């Protein structure tokens, strides 16, 4: 496609039919080829930058029905409801009158991955502006039909209204391709003071089906003639299938087919439990050659800091050799941790007349389509991926792999819809884990008890091995003609990966931050909620408390002394106030208070969390008693939805922080279920969690889905240190480690 052409709206309104059609075709072609739609106009808001046509976001039928499109995927975070609110607000229609369609390679814009707390910022902003501009175009159309000035018209309930009371419904006004125009850089957005739908806690649109047994997930799909498949995964990374007699398995009741392609082994049966029994028989028949190639789990610090690394200084301020009077050094570690979705990954695929359709809970239908097309050696245009909700993923779990599994098996059974669901052990052993990390910190205080210099070193793998190519997916790696795992790359700043939130938000006069990027990946890893920010914020905010003790200053006061960002200060003050935080406070016997703060990625939502933790000195068992959070995520669309996200972040991060680490021997992953990978259960749920929102009407949406992970971890760690007088620096902060620290 040629350089971007801004279609003159008046010409459109005057009727530029032929022109429009040609653009329409090129747009469709660009979408089919999987490329982000052409013509990036750099100043367009949100994802309009890559998909600039209004009708990629909002379509209105002649009967007045309105459909909003987003390339992002609903993962249980509730944005589908928020987008419906945004569109209803800017279009001036009732919330209920809209339908939101999410990620589908045939229908929606290519917005890459639903990740990084970017959905509201990218897609929400695009929907808001597209809806506002669509409304403007409808008003302009009405003005020209009525021969009235645009300024004399207004909108309400899906119609343009004239001063004499005459109403022209949106359905009547829509004609030709009136919305098939490129967006303008600025929109006449509504004044936040007049919002009717944005800012309200509208009940989520997806919850009703989930609490009444409606079909809500890809796991619930039942297509006519559908068969059930199970994969037999190798027992360990790199294992080779040396022998497998499939004859007996093929004779088992209901078995339709055994699929073998190199080290990829699967069985298909008419009924689901038949496929599981056949999978067990097939696993027993398979002989694998394994290699001991995993590092020592108990010595991740040495393992990670001794692997070859690409070292780069990512931040430098003042003099790195400067030093204050009192100096402190500390090392923090994080183990490999699992996404641990409650529902194992699942997908349904069907090959009809050379076209593959895959229903999947992937976070990225477009990049995943690229990988699947490459694996199947099919043109991307012949592969369609449709997002259907799955169990919560919290990052890159087995979703994309299950989609690849289903498509590879479906290719062997043309016409038949094939449903694959992983077993619990497969999800635990084969999902790409959140990477282990090491941070080393050093800082000193000046004579006034302020931080004079700050050094931060972080060792980490990449935090994204997501598909784009076939080599990221297990099925493609295991085929007889395998696709190589792509070379890992560090994710670029300012968002970063292992170095996400490694740069301090505080105004230290001298500071240096060094990223040691480790290309070798002994364990399969990828993106997990908050990426490196979880451990980096845990480290920074734990170390700040250690320094505050050294400076004999209250931790909240110590943070405020070093923070110039006014919105950051506001959330700290709000959390402290609502917690009842007081300088010089003393927690009750065996209890401790902790505080932590971060702005996610240093550019998304702000979050401060105060917590109270109880520690049983006999057993070492920690318990989060209560947490109080304050969050600023810009303009709030759905307050209850935001609160739900932050509550969940605190509880999930607490589970990571207190209990969780992936275990392995020299060959196999050994944490393969909920017994061997224990997570939070109801006995350890806090007594209360409060979330206080600082709304910023009219300010940009700031993503908030991941902002709580780091502050929650550090807040709890600081409370444990406050309760026990002992500082724990190795995650998870288990009962055993706390007990050992108390007894030391």
């Amino acid at each position: 496609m040629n350089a971007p052409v801004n279609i003159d709206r008046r010409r459109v309104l005057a009727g530029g039919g032929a022109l429009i059609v040609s653009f329409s075709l090129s747009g469709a072609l660009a979408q089919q080829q999987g490329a982000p739609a052409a013509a990036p106009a750099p100043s367009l808001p949100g994802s309009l930058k890559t998909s600039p046509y209004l009708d990629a976001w909002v379509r209105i039928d002649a009967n007045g029905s309105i459909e909003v499109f987003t390339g992002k995927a609903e993962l249980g975070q509730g944005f589908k409801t928020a987008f419906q609110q945004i569109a209803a607000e800017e279009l001036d229609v009732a919330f209920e009158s809209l339908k939101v369609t999410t990620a589908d390679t045939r229908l929606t814009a290519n917005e890459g991955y639903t990740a990084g707390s970017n959905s509201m910022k990218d897609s929400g902003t695009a929907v808001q502006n597209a809806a506002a501009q669509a409304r403007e175009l409808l008003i302009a159309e009405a003005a020209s039909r009525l021969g009235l000035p645009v300024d004399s018209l207004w909108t309400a309930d899906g119609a343009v209204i004239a001063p004499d009371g005459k109403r022209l419904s949106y359905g009547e006004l829509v004609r030709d391709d009136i919305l098939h125009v490129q967006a303008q850089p600025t929109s006449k957005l509504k004044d936040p003071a007049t919002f009717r739908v944005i800012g309200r806690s509208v009940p989520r649109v997806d919850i009703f089906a989930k609490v009444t047994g409606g079909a809500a997930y890809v796991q619930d799909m039942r297509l006519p003639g559908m068969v059930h498949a199970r994969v037999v995964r190798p027992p360990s990374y790199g294992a080779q299938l040396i022998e497998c007699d499939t004859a007996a398995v093929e004779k088992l009741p209901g078995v339709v087919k055994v699929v073998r392609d190199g080290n990829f082994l699967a069985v298909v049966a008419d009924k689901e439990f038949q496929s599981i029994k056949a999978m067990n028989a097939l696993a027993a028949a398979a002989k694998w050659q394994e290699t001991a190639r995993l590092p020592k789990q108990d010595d991740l610090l040495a393992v990670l800091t001794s692997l070859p690394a690409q070292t780069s200084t990512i931040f430098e301020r003042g003099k790195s050799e400067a030093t204050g009077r009192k100096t402190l050094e500390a090392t923090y570690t994080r183990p490999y941790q699992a996404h641990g979705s409650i529902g194992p990954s699942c997908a349904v695929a069907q090959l009809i007349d050379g076209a593959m359709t895959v229903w999947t809970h992937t976070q990225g239908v477009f990049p995943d389509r690229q990988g699947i097309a490459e694996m199947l050696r099919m043109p991307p245009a012949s592969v369609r991926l449709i997002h259907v909700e799955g169990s919560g993923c919290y990052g890159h779990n087995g979703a994309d792999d299950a989609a690849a599994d289903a498509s590879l098996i479906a290719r062997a059974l043309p016409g038949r819809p094939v449903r694959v669901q992983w077993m619990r052990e497969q999800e635990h052993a084969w999902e790409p884990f959140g990477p282990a990390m090491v941070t080393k910190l050093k800082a000193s205080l000046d004579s006034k008890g302020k931080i004079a210099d700050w050094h931060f070193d972080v060792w980490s793998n990449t935090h994204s091995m997501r598909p784009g190519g076939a080599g990221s997916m297990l099925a493609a790696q295991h085929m007889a003609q395998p696709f190589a795992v792509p070379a890992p790359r560090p994710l670029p700043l300012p968002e970063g990966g292992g170095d996400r939130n490694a740069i301090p938000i505080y105004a230290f006069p001298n500071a240096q931050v060094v990223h040691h990027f480790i290309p070798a990946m002994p364990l399969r890893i990828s993106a997990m909620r908050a990426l490196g920010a979880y451990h980096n914020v845990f480290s920074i905010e734990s170390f700040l408390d250690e320094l505050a003790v050294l400076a004999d200053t209250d931790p909240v006061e110590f943070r405020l002394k070093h923070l110039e960002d006014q919105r950051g200060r506001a959330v700290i003050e709000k959390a402290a106030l609502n917690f009842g935080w007081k300088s010089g406070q003393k927690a009750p016997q065996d209890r401790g208070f902790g505080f932590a703060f971060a702005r996610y990625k240093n550019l998304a939502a702000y979050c401060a969390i105060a917590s109270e933790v109880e520690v049983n000195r006999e057993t070492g068992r920690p318990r989060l008693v209560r947490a109080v959070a304050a969050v600023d995520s810009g303009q709030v669309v759905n307050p209850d939805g935001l609160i739900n996200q932050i509550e969940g972040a605190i509880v999930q991060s607490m589970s990571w922080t207190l209990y969780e680490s992936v275990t392995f021997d020299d060959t196999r992953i050994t944490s393969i279920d909920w017994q061997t990978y224990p997570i939070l259960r109801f006995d350890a749920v806090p007594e209360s969690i409060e979330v206080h929102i600082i709304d910023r009407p009219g300010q940009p949406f700031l993503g908030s889905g991941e902002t709580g992970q780091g502050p929650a971890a550090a807040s709890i760690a600081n409370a444990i240190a406050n309760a026990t007088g002992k500082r724990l620096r190795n995650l998870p902060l288990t009962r055993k480690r706390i007990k050992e620290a108390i007894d030391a």
Partner: protein
Amino acid sequence: MMTLKVNGREHQVDADPDTPLLYVLREDIKLNAAKFGCGLGQCGACTVIVDGKAVLSCVTPMVLLDGKQVTTLEGLGTASQPAPIQRAFMEEQAAQCGYCIAGIMMRAQALLQRNSRPTDEQIRSELEPHLCRCGTHMRILRAVHRAARLMDTADASSTANGRAR
């Protein structure tokens, strides 16, 4: 062929006796609510009620179920007439991804059927077999308390306000 009574209706089911109830509910009877989570009885996503008791359907073989009454989330209420526990979970917006929710609701329902006024501690202890990965626990606990009040109100319409918790 065996007879299974689910949500008040009899079904003739042709499944091997070792087939876990979960697969019969999902595949033969085409119900969505009970979910496969682990197949090991460790997470609670598959929980249904059998003869009044919460049961992990992923590890309960059909051979044990002849003549028993099975209730799933679908059997508690309808879209137009949701059961108190369904109303409570909606009113508290007690879900994120929601995959674990149906199982949790069924165990809570079984609890409330035998103890209409459980303490917070009793609810937490009862829900011990269940995992929620999104961290929706606070809302789930609030929703169970709310369901208890709603059921109370439904049972004895004179006490309109239910109980304080």
